[in-house]
């Protein structure tokens, strides 16, 4: 019987692999950015899963509640940070893609080879 | 050259002459058909070398300038250059009638008829052609003349250069041999030094 955590782990790694695969197979820069985002999502899922406790509760200290049954709050904090950073990077990337399109007239990675060797 | 000077040779000079006559090297200027007579003269039948006479290649080394045949204006110029490059004592031998009076080319507009107007000829070998016997005989008489100290025609070129020069210039204008015979004559003491 596969536990929820296992499903989540598998899903998150699958997402990471799919994202990376997109990055290394897609020529379209937008798709590359999307691929990275998919990988990001996978990572975030992974982080959250690590903090996941089967049947755990919201990690808020209330009267009479022990920390043992809470999900780990640290990964969630991490995920928040990671999401913010991911958002920033994605925005910057998309801006750059726009600029690149304005400059080169293409978003095809295979035609963007002014810098090589 | 007066007889008095001839008799005034010292004993040393006499001995020297008798040695020098045994070695005569010859530059043959072969423009004419006469050259064909020279190989038999040199090789085994007549063997010129027994008198010490050998063919030589450059004028610097030669004592005898053998002119074997007619001379045109063009070749005469060369002959004069070559003669002036030879070292004294040097002897011009005219070979065949062409050099004496033009021979069979007497009527030609292009040949020189008399060699001795341009160069001091020591000896003429008459004939058309002179046979090897004649050549040998001619050389023998040259040797005799050297031995007696009479073969001095080369000095004439130094002493009477004006005469030769005038004839040369008359025939082909100015020629430049990079050498002043008049200076040479004074340098070597063949004529009095002019102040």
């Amino acid at each position, binding site marked *: 019987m596969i536990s929820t955590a296992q499903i989540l782990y598998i899903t998150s790694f699958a997402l990471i692999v799919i994202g990376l695969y997109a*990055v290394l197979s897609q020529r379209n820069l937008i798709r590359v950015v999307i691929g*990275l985002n998919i990988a990001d999502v996978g990572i975030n899922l992974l982080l959250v899963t690590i903090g996941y406790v089967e049947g755990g509760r919201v990690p808020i200290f209330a009267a009479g509640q022990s920390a043992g049954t809470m999900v780990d709050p640290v990964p969630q904090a991490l995920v928040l940070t990671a999401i913010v950073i991911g958002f920033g990077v994605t925005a910057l990337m998309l801006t750059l*893609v726009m600029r690149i399109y304005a400059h080169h007239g293409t978003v095809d990675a295979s035609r963007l080879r002014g810098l090589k060797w | 050259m007066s007889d008095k000077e001839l008799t005034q040779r010292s004993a040393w000079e006499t001995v020297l002459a008798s040695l020098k006559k045994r070695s005569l090297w010859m530059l043959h200027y072969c423009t004419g058909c006469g050259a064909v007579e020279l190989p038999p003269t040199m090789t085994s039948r007549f063997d010129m070398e027994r008198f010490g006479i050998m063919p030589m290649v450059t004028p610097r080394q030669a004592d005898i300038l053998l002119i074997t045949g007619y001379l045109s204006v063009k070749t005469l110029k060369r002959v004069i250059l070559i003669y002036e490059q030879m070292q004294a004592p040097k002897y011009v031998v005219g070979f065949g009638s062409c050099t004496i009076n033009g021979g069979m080319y007497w009527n030609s507009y292009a040949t020189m008829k008399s060699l001795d107007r341009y160069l001091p000829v020591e000896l003429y070998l008459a004939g058309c052609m002179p046979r090897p016997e004649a050549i040998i005989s001619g050389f023998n008489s040259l040797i005799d003349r050297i031995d007696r100290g009479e073969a001095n025609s080369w000095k004439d070129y130094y002493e009477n250069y004006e005469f030769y020069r005038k004839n040369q210039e008359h025939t082909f204008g100015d020629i430049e041999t990079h050498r002043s015979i008049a200076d040479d004559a004074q340098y070597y003491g063949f004529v009095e030094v002019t102040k």
Partner: protein
Amino acid sequence: MVSPMLFIIAPLSAAFIMILFNSRVIALGLSLLVPIGLAWLGLSWLPYTLGAAQPILVASIPAPLGIPLSIDALGAGMAILVAVSAALVVLYSSSYMKKGHHEVRYYTVVMILLTSAFGLVLTRDIFNLFVFFEILCISSYILVSWEQDGAALEASFKYMVLGSIGSTFLLVSIALVYRVAGSLAMADVATALATAPRGYVAFAAVTFLFGVGVEAAIFPVNTWLPDAHSSAPSSISAILSGFVIELALVVAFRVLNTAFAAVDTLPLVRVVAIAGVIVGEMAAFGQKDLKRMLAYSSISQIGIMLFAFSLGTQAGAQAGLQHLLMHAGAKSALFLIAGYFIVRTGSRLIADYAGLGHRMPVSAALFGFAALSLVGAPPLLGFFTKFQVLSAAGAAGGFTAWLGVAVILFGTVLETVYLFRVLRVLFAPAASGSPARADMDWPALAAVALFTALVVFGALLLPTLSQMIGPMADGLASLL
């Protein structure tokens, strides 16, 4: 005692202040003063950190919940290097950057970059490391694309994609580590990983190595470097090649060597380092573009430092750190001079610099000295550092160590050839008469001259340096 927190707060607040005032003078003044002040601060702490058995902790909340920041000898040393380099580059930028060309924003981003650089040095928490790493990356992306021309955009985008993959791997690593350690402080990580399954740790270590390795330009994840370093403004190239990649290298290696000490990654690192040396030199050999050539040279130099670290000995670590110092000085100088070559000729191609040495004699001479030091000509600093790397390798022994020696020696030959090919072009006879002198402007010249002086007369510092380098090298092998 002033809190080391200042290292992070000062540049960050300077960045906000200058964007607030939007005045060139204030921006320039702040971005000169802050690094100089911090450098002075670092210098004043250096004696304590050298003597201190324990690093100075600054975080008020204790681990595991707190954010441990600490400064040790290595941290202080790196902080000084970063601050001094930054100050000099800013000095250079004052004349190099075109006036009104978003200049204030430029300095702002540089200050943010500095913030993250100091943060990387000081942090003792893996997730903080990730955060500073990301800030460093983002500010670098922005600076690389500063010129906004086709090449810069393209380079920046490639950098960004690879950087993002790197942070992905870094996060994977962090997640894995957190899963077993339950803490993100490096000290806890080290103890927790010692008992973890080794395959698991190895996976975490490799993802960490190549995650941070992107910024440290470790072979083969350094493919962005030639593009980014050559397309960025030259002052930024100097920053990137001068201390950013070195800093990332030190951080990456330190964490790998301490937190992930459970698995012996040194052989892997050594192979990667040797491959980097040879690939970098070979790729630089045929370059026609000056900055690109220098960028490839950086790849190989990083390889040399990493090789020295990977020997796993105290001597190796010392040699690597000294080589790092030399490379920071020499490569910054080379990039900064190359920047003015480009300004004066409008071209990046070496072939277009024919006779430039007659127009810019001082710059060309400084270029020559920096190049001499880079290839390790005695008695310049480069010789001593390279010699130490080699003798440390010899002392460590083993096939890969001697292979590394051979490769470094061969690489040096190649490096000499291509660098002096540039010099030959620079001093080619002038095409027409004696051209007008057009050396670098004086602030730039001063900055470059100081960098060059470091590598030329650095050998005189060696006795002093060798006293400090021991504790610093210890920092590479020990946590906290």
